[in-house]
């Protein structure tokens, strides 16, 4: 099967501390791939390296877009990543509190807008038309994640669970081929998590895109992921299906602490 993302020998350190150490993995098209590990294992750092918020010290990150063209992500400006069809969410949600929910979602389509500053200033009819079309698309996305009734309310006033859904909806606007989710269920209660699990599965199925996620909720990870990669101190411990990972002694040690050490 064709790959959508491949990470080869990725390393990055901060002030002598190796946050990610020679990590390699790849994600296939339409696959849901999980990255797990104890706190401080470097999971979010991996995401930041892939999306070029951090510049890795070593290693290559390659992404294959919808048309099958391969891109080397290293050194690309962070704002160009989404244009390839690779989009992410954030651990603590990064929502524009001053904007209505629908405008937050519309921000996800930012790279689609053809109108420049002057065209926008003079409200050219074609620019307004595109705005209306994308607003309709955003409304469809909001219906999909179940926020259509509060589309015009301000994002700042919403509870955490809604913010998580806004962020998820925002990623759908660019028709992605890979979505990176950083702890999508963090801070959610059980019923919210259950709904989210269904939603993520639905997104992968209906929109034909791969998903890479970091999550502490093992139930969600095990239920969703086709393959899982466990890391500890920036190093890969094991990779495999949910069942394989659960049985792996190295992974059990990393989570529970080595007993023979005591």
């Amino acid at each position, binding site marked *: 099967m064709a790959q959508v993302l491949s990470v080869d020998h990725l390393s990055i350190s*901060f002030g002598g501390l190796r946050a990610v150490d020679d990590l390699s993995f790849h994600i296939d098209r339409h696959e849901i791939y999980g990255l797990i590990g104890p706190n401080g294992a470097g999971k*979010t750092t991996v995401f*930041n390296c892939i999306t070029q*918020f*951090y510049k890795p010290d070593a290693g290559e990150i390659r992404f294959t877009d919808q048309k099958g063209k391969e891109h080397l992500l290293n050194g690309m400006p962070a704002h160009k990543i989404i244009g390839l069809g690779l989009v992410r969410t*954030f651990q603590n949600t990064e929502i524009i509190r001053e904007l209505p929910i629908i405008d937050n979602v519309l921000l996800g389509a930012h790279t689609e807008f053809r109108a420049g500053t002057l065209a926008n200033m003079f409200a050219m009819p074609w620019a307004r038309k595109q705005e209306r079309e994308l607003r309709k698309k955003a409304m469809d996305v909001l219906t999909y994640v179940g926020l259509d009734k509060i589309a015009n309310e301000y994002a700042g006033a919403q509870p955490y669970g809604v913010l998580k859904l806004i962020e998820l909806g925002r990623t759908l606007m660019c028709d992605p081929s890979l979505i990176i989710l950083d702890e999508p269920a963090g801070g959610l209660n059980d019923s919210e998590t259950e709904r989210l699990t269904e939603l993520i599965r639905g997104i992968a199925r209906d929109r034909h895109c791969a998903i890479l996620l970091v999550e502490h909720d093992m139930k969600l990870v095990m239920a969703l992921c086709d393959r899982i990669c466990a890391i500890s101190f920036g190093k890969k411990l094991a990779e495999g299906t949910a069942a394989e990972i659960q049985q792996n002694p190295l992974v059990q040690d990393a989570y529970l602490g080595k007993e023979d050490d005591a």
Partner: protein
Amino acid sequence: MVEFFQQVVGGIETGSMYALAAMGLVLIYQTAKIINFSQGTLGMFMAYVCTGLILDLGLPMWVAVPVAMIVAMVLGGLIDRFLMNGKRNITNLSREMITLAIIMIFQGLAPMLFGANETPFSKFISASALDLGGVKVLPNSLLIIGITCLIMAVLFFVLEKTTLGVAVRATASNPQVARLQGIPVKLVTIGAWAVATALGCLAAVMVAPLKNVTVSMMDSIHLNSFIASVLGGFSTFYGPVVASFIIGIANNLLGYYVSTKWSLPLLYALILLFIVLRPNGLFGKKIVKKV
């Protein structure tokens, strides 16, 4: 050559004032992560207070200046407690704009309380110039340079060698982690504001004999301390201090050898060029932003 050294000594003297103000800026920037635009204005206001203490209460200068500095510390602490952190969820952009509002408040208050006239301010030491191998140095200049060096030495000692300094540096590097480790981050920023305002006060008192006490007396000092902090790099404590002296000396030399009128624009242009090449300043490190 004598003229050269004459200019250098003059540069070190003005550089001292920039350094005091710049140290205040960096203290607040490092601990509270905001730029205090009101540093110069607060110094100006404290110079008025000091003048009032001397002229109206008849205090001798060596009492009036420390008293004014203590008042400045209280004022700085109050500003941090009630304006910077008066309410939760106030953004850093808003905090910086509040410091802009403080400029207006104290520029309005100063003429209201102390009158709009320029007030002369005498030097600490009025003795005539010493002759050091042809270079004329006023004892007052030596005192200014001496006090600055002393204060810098004390501050650097506190920052590097004491527990208090560790608390300040921990807050500077990561406030959240510092708070988790039991460092009273709120007190640290109050302290930073207090010390910074006192340093601004001292700088203003040093400038006062040269420019008289006016509402606009601190404008150029304030601006140059900003530029020094940019040149030295906001991420270190010593960078801005070193850069202050560089700017003081360079400005004097450019003024003497090139043109008095164009020395400052020329200097700023050079610094701008430098910043293009080294965006983090002379000594600054690149900061990786947490995402």
